[in-house]
């Protein structure tokens, strides 16, 4: 059996890779992909804790499904926003989308 720590380490690495993508990418779609990676890392943690700590209760899996739901909604709205911005300003570079900058 694989120790719980290994799963947590993989999830931590995945989260950090996703955070790098979300913060360093110039393309808005790339930022969104980084966020998806971070949400997936959270799901790995939830399922690993369900399996190793509380397998008799289904709370871990339930929360993973709620995270997947929120991720789907977020991706749909985020990509709609990107397409709308592309139509109006012909750019998907997050450095040029600065209308709300103070």
């Amino acid at each position, binding site marked *: 059996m694989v120790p719980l720590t290994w799963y947590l380490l993989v999830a931590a690495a995945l989260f950090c890779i996703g955070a790098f993508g979300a913060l360093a990418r110039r393309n808005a779609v790339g930022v969104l992909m980084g966020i998806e990676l971070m949400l997936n890392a959270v799901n790995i943690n939830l399922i690993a804790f369900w399996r190793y700590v509380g*397998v008799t209760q289904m709370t871990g899996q339930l929360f993973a499904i709620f995270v997947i739901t929120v991720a789907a909604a977020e991706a749909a709205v985020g990509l709609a926003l990107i397409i709308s911005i592309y139509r109006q300003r012909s750019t*998907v570079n997050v450095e040029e989308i600065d209308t709300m900058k103070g």
Partner: protein
Amino acid sequence: MQQVMFIVLSLVTLAAALMVVIARSMFRAALWLVLTFFGIAGLFILLHAEFIAVAQVLIYVGAISTLIIFAIMLSRGVMDPDARRFNDQWGVVAGFGAVLFVLLAAVVTRTRWPVALADVPADAIQRLGGDFVGSYVIPFEVASVLLVVAMIGAIIIAREQES
């Protein structure tokens, strides 16, 4: 055997995730993202969460990746492939990511987790469904409202403005 499977799956997942964030072409990044999602589904199967693994393949590989590829196709041409991939702060962000990982790894390996290994109950998926319409019925309904709102919102935001 399980250890070998775990190591192979996590190496594939992490390598693909790294390619997602460093790939020059956004389209290639999206294809690497599909591989990452498959690797994570494999990890879920290793954890005996078969239902979540199927949901992962259906929703992430089937829906979200397709949506992302559509968005890349629709916004193509503006980002020329020779342009810079990262913004000016990427060095700082890479350092931040490395420090965060070291911090998380230190916490994860030093904490004594209350591991209580037991066999997965045979009726796990029935219980999952029962919980959804039982003690978690309110969050379940709120999630469905959220999905409807997101769908309507996405249509309204992405609609062609006639003016």
